[in-house]
């Protein structure tokens, strides 16, 4: 028995996401009224924004809210992919080394670059730190995948071990970079690792949108394969799934999308792990519904967390990564309790 039908959940999520996006654009150190938002929207469509509200929305709030939503989609859907691939509800993208690799890459750039590179060095709208994060994350996944692939195919169990090993290696490198860093760099490194969306700008939005396009083109087509995967690899093969091709697609997709997400927003934990789990508790593990539902819930959770992060200590702000866990955990607990009650009765 299920808490809710998949269609009802999808409708409920959509009905939450849209108003939340609008609300998130109004909230901040400077409150924008619904009327102000309306004017700003009109200005966006007519050309150059001129009012204060229009400028805030166009240059700050809109890219930030969009970036939060897009990164949320990437994290949550890639989490779904990994949990399906590993047949483990506790798997998340960091399992294949992408997060620790990205951290090491970012730390390296911070330490190497010092002040000069950080301010001046830009690549397609991304700071060099972001480029380092993407490179580090992608390289780590590539290594893990190579280690686990032999002539007989890719072993998911070996990949898990290789992921742990590469994560440990990246962790050691990260510690090494932190050790040689001065106090200012150290603060940057630890802030980066908490994950934050405060560097949101339009180029980052477009790059994150690219990641979402990749994820949402691949994942819906793999829904049936992922369902079969949950039976085990042999069974999936007997059901006509080309197991190794599916694995390669999903891993490459996760490396790209999470690499981009980490590059634009730092390591935001928890979303990739908990969102698929929450959705499964409500509608069950069918990936045909799991994929769109986790995409929306991931966006909702991150936009919500980021909005609170901006408002709660205004005019300063908290790193978003802290709030995803602070907000998500109580919700997750309540679901677990509700589910238990439901099953007993």
């Amino acid at each position, binding site marked *: 028995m299920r808490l809710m039908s998949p269609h009802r959940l999808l409708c409920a999520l959509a009905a939450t996401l849209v108003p939340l996006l609008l609300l998130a654009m109004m909230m901040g150190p400077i409150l924008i009224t619904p009327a102000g938002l309306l004017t700003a929207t009109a200005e966006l469509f007519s050309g150059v924004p001129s009012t204060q509200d229009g400028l805030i929305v166009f240059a700050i709030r809109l890219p930030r809210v969009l970036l939060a939503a897009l990164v949320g989609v990437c994290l949550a859907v890639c989490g779904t992919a990994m949990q399906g691939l590993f047949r483990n509800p506790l798997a998340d993208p960091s399992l294949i080394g992408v997060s620790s690799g990205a951290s090491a890459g970012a730390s390296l750039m911070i330490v190497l670059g010092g002040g000069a590179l950080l301010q001046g060095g830009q690549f397609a709208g991304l700071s060099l730190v972001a480029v380092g994060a993407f490179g580090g994350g992608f390289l780590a996944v590539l290594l893990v995948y190579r280690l686990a692939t032999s002539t007989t195919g890719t072993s998911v169990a070996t990949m898990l071990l290789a992921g742990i090993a590469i994560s440990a290696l990246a962790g050691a490198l990260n510690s090494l970079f932190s050790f040689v860093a001065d106090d200012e760099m150290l603060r940057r490194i630890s802030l980066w690792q908490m994950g934050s969306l405060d560097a949101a700008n339009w180029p980052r939005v477009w790059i994150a949108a690219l990641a979402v396009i990749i994820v949402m083109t691949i994942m819906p087509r793999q829904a049936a394969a992922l369902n079969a995967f949950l039976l085990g690899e042999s*069974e999936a093969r007997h059901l*006509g799934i080309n197991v190794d091709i599916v694995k390669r697609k999903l891993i490459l997709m996760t490396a790209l999308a999470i690499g981009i997400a980490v590059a634009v927003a730092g390591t935001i934990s928890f979303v990739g792990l908990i969102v698929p789990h929450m959705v499964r508790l409500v509608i069950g593990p069918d990936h045909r519904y799991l994929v769109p539902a986790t995409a929306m819930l991931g966006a909702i959770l991150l936009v919500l967390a980021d909005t609170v992060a901006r408002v709660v200590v205004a005019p300063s702000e908290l790193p978003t990564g802290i709030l995803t866990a602070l907000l998500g955990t109580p919700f997750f607990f309540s679901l677990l309790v509700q589910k238990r009650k439901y099953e007993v009765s």
Partner: protein
Amino acid sequence: MALSATGLSLRVAEFPLLDNVNLVVEPGEVTAVLGPNGAGKTSLLRVLVGELTPDKGEVHLNQRGLHDWLAVERARTLAVLPQHSLLNFPFTAKEVVMLGRTPHDTGATQDRAIVAEALRAVDGDYLADRVYTQLSGGEKQRVHLARVLAQIWEPSPLGHRYLVLDEPTSSFDLAHQQLTLDIVKSLAIREVGILIVIHDLNLAARCADQMVLLQCGAIVASGTPEEVLVADTIKKIFQVDAKIGAHPLSGKPLVIT
């Protein structure tokens, strides 16, 4: 047309698991593979369904090499019921059975009808909306039986269909052991070729048209139950003294130990 193996040999780390095994699973017949633990029953089964590649020998499915098939087409022709399932996600039983329809594109309406019929066939009507992870071992195994039934439910234009079962009755109570054998036999009547790995000699005698006895990776006896189940062979392979009687109703051999 058949599911056939010729000259299969398989070694793992210099330890021979299969030694020159020849086997033909004919459509419309039940072939039972028996033997002591470690005789190579599961290895043979895994080679036959393509999970392991033999060092020597070939497997043909309807006269085409097993690895020359398109994955989806092979799945419409050959279904496999493993001994244990790794599934630990909370699908409903109905959804698990629906996974059997993955290789087909017959449309949701027909798939739902087939899933309902397959569940009914395994006496699993009442399980349809229950969560798989909360079922008992025997109920889970029945759900998987329904899943493989749904996979090869209809005749295929690609030739005869085959069902391979690895100890399907091990976690069943008496009534469901009987039911499984009835299902297997009725599938054989519908021209499906059945390969069943089974430990219980008497259950095997009741349903098999052909019996194959394995020891140390080689076939030591094969033929009808009457030909294979003789006291000497059983003594030689299982080191057990047995009397062979006849089933009072079916007349099939009955091994009494």
